[in-house]
């Protein structure tokens, strides 16, 4: 439990209490609606009271989020939300601080703030709404759009290799790295709760459908017909099982992940067992990133991919202050003003 949770009572709120009086202005059918709903539900479950929560966003469709949460909030400028959150958390470690950011906001203009936030490890929750497109500016490709994406700015197809956001986050030293999706409310809620519980910067990528400019980007992973084949839901300590009725598993052949059929003889015992704390395994898991094509494709992992306990920035900051106070005594303004060497004119 975060500091905030630990010290404050549960005000018995419901998800509705977290809605504001502002009309929600996303396009009808946008995946953001589902995420909003799950976040509101999770907020109620955390037992936090409204006033101790802050949502901070940049600019984009996703970034409208704070307006719809009856908490404190800042709809800031494009890409910089982690900056505001860092300053806020520095001076107010008691608050539960959430950052909401689209794939353009978080990974294009905001990429530097993301990687520095991850390395510093403030206790923040970063929600990356990845729709693989710039929604608000009407559909240009983003740093997560697959190569060849045709948009207004790339009428002949994009030529950029997209980021693998979780691999990037891992490389930046992130202490909590997870993935979920708009269309699996239960999984999303569970993962949000885990992000909230993690003490440090939690990076949660949420696949989100932009039905206007990039409809179906993740349908492979969300549609009934393909979901079982193409997704792998990770559980700590559990073997990597997926597929229709858990018919498939993944084992490691050296470093190479291999798909095995549990129906055709393979046993669960030989499977790779998920260990959130294993960074090498996490890096292999983030590497499950080829586009799903057929049953030979590795499934896309969802859930907590990596987690590590390391000191939180805002705590180190406060501790250093406490230590200095102990060593030098609580600052005395008069002593500070006079400095070490003075003289009197009279």
């Amino acid at each position, binding site marked *: 439990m975060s500091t905030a949770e630990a010290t404050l009572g549960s005000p018995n709120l419901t998800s509705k209490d977290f809605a504001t009086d502002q009309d929600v202005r996303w396009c009808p059918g946008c995946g953001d609606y589902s995420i909003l709903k799950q976040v509101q539900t999770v907020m109620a479950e955390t037992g936090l009271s409204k006033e101790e929560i802050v949502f901070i966003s940049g600019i984009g469709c996703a970034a409208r989020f704070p307006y719809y949460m009856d908490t404190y909030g800042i709809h800031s400028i494009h890409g910089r939300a982690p900056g505001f959150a860092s300053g806020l958390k520095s001076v107010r470690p008691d608050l539960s601080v959430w950052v909401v950011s689209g794939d353009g906001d978080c990974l294009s203009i905001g990429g530097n703030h993301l990687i520095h936030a991850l390395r510093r490890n403030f206790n923040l929750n970063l929600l990356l709404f990845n729709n693989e497109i710039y929604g608000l500016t009407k559909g240009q490709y983003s740093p997560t759009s697959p190569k060849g994406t045709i948009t207004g700015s790339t009428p002949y197809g994009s030529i950029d290799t997209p980021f693998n956001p979780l691999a990037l986050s891992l490389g930046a030293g992130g202490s909590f790295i997870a993935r979920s999706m708009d269309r699996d409310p239960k999984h999303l809620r569970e993962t949000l709760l885990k992000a909230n519980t993690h003490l440090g910067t939690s990076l949660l990528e949420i696949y989100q459908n932009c039905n206007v400019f990039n409809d179906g980007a993740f349908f492979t992973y969300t549609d009934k017909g393909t979901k079982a084949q193409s997704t792998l839901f990770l559980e700590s300590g559990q073997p990597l099982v997926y597929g229709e009725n858990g018919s498939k598993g993944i084992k490691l052949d050296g470093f190479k992940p291999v798909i095995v059929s549990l129906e055709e003889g393979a046993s669960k015992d030989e499977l790779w067992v998920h260990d959130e704390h294993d960074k090498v395994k996490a890096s292999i898991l983030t590497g499950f990133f080829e586009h799903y094509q057929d049953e030979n494709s590795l499934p896309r992992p969802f859930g907590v991919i990596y987690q590590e306990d390391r000191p939180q920035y805002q705590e180190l900051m406060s501790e250093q202050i406490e230590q200095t106070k102990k060593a030098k005594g609580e*600052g005395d*303004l008069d002593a500070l003003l006079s400095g070490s060497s003075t003289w009197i004119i009279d």
Partner: protein
Amino acid sequence: METQLKEVTILFAGDSGDGIQLTGGQFTDTAAQLGNDVSTFPNFPAEIRAPIGTLAGVSGFQLKFGSVNIYTPGDECDVMVAMNAAALKANLSTLKKGGIIIANESGFDSKNLRLAKYDEGANPLENHSLEDYEVHKVDVTKLTREALKDSGLGQKEMDRSKNMFVLGFVYWIYNRSLDNSINFISTKFGKKPELRDANIAVLKAGYHFGDTAEAFSTRYEIGPAPLPKGTYRTINGNQAIGLGLIAATQKAGLELFYGSYPITPASSLLHELAKHKNFGVKTYQAEDEIAAICSAIGASFGGALGVTGSSGPGIALKGEALGLAVILEIPLVVVNVQRGGPSTGLPTKTEQADLFQALYGRNGEAPLPVIATRSPADCFETTIEACRMAVEHMTPVILLSDGYIANGSEPWKFPQAKDIPVITPPMAKEKLNGSTEEFLPYKRDDKLVRKWALPGMKGLQHRIGGIEKENETGNVSYDPDNHEFMTKLRAERIEKIAEYLPKLEIDNGPEKGDVLILGWGSTYGSIKTAVRDLLAEGQEVSHAHLRHVHPLPKNLGEILKNFKHVLIPEMNMGQLVQIIRSKYLIDAIGLNKIKGMPFSSSEIKNKVVELI
């Protein structure tokens, strides 16, 4: 023989490794402690460590001290200490005709002469090129080694204290006691007694050298200056800003958060604040200037006073976020320690060319107060004023300083904590249980200031952002009339701050007359000195100095009307002058210097004389 002098300008110059800054600092402290007024101008080389002995590696420390009020480190030097040939060559032009040169002989060997790019075979100490000056050759290196021959130190270590020899010698010339420096050395080398003793021995050797050397027959006496009674210390500009920030936040009952990214000449403010963690100061070295200002805004949203500081190029990067702070109406102090521009420009030199950037360097109509400090000691009060304005008026404020102020130092009659006026943040009140009153985050008091509602306060949840906001509710609004209303309101609430400011006063000279010199920022000392001298010469000239560049003092128009000419000296191509001409439609003229260096008072005097 002893001669009474009113003021003296000394330049210590040598290689960056020669301890010049420390020597100058020590002389300054001693002079100040003996009641002189002092002003200093350290001048670093642009390189971290340029090759020893080269022109690029020369470090200088100029100071003026006197029995009269001192406002600048002096136009020309009376005395120059040159530790090597390069130091002499680089600085000779600033020495008065007839001035004294104290030259370290061993710094003029053939290698040094070559590095200083003197012509083959030409040694200024030996040819007649310095005939216009009074040259004293002292073999500082040799004398230092001699003084330490029994110390057991190695030669490299011995040579490191040669600056103390010079210091001692100059103390002798100006009849200064060694006590202050001996104390300093004792503290500094407390844990290394052999170095402590060596440095003290060399300091004394230098002093005694004065007694024995025949060359110097004259010693000078500079009595105490007529400074106001009180307790003093010396302080430089960035230190004073740091102290001002701490004092202001203490007086406002707020936590101080300083988010910054290193840049010359603003870095030392970060260093200063980082030292004072026992005051609860939170310093945060962000990944860049954008993150730095954003973190400061975030901190202010949380109820601390968010402050960010940088210099020109870094301030340019903050423009977008600064616009956000304007529309958020949130307290924020942005310190710009200006340096030479454009672009990377002249990082170690001073300039005032970021005024326009401060006023206009944002998209859209984004007005905010801009205030400027005039001298190292003035930084303290100006900083407190910037904080007061930011907090009490819920607005970002830009505080302009510059490299000259940041590194320069002067005596400061510091206040007692209890005498610093309290700052009152316009905090919102938590809602009582059962209250159904709607909280309006953009509702204002009669200063047009909204309330500061902090996360954690019950019932005041609200969302702020950069899209135009509806009056009172703060909700997003695309309504055309509301946009015009809010744009005007944002301008008005900044203009209104002028109502809470003291009137501008004439600093010196008559209230009406021929010429008014209107200044802002670090030109203060040069103008002050020029005007003092001109008045003494019987010329009619007045001086007014702006702390508040935006909004301008309400009575400025009236003052301007009383003068036939208005002269505005600036270390830029004419920025304030443009504002004044436009606003008051008077033919104010600029005096502009863009050399990375402060005005000399004679430059200002000459221009005034030309005008009259």
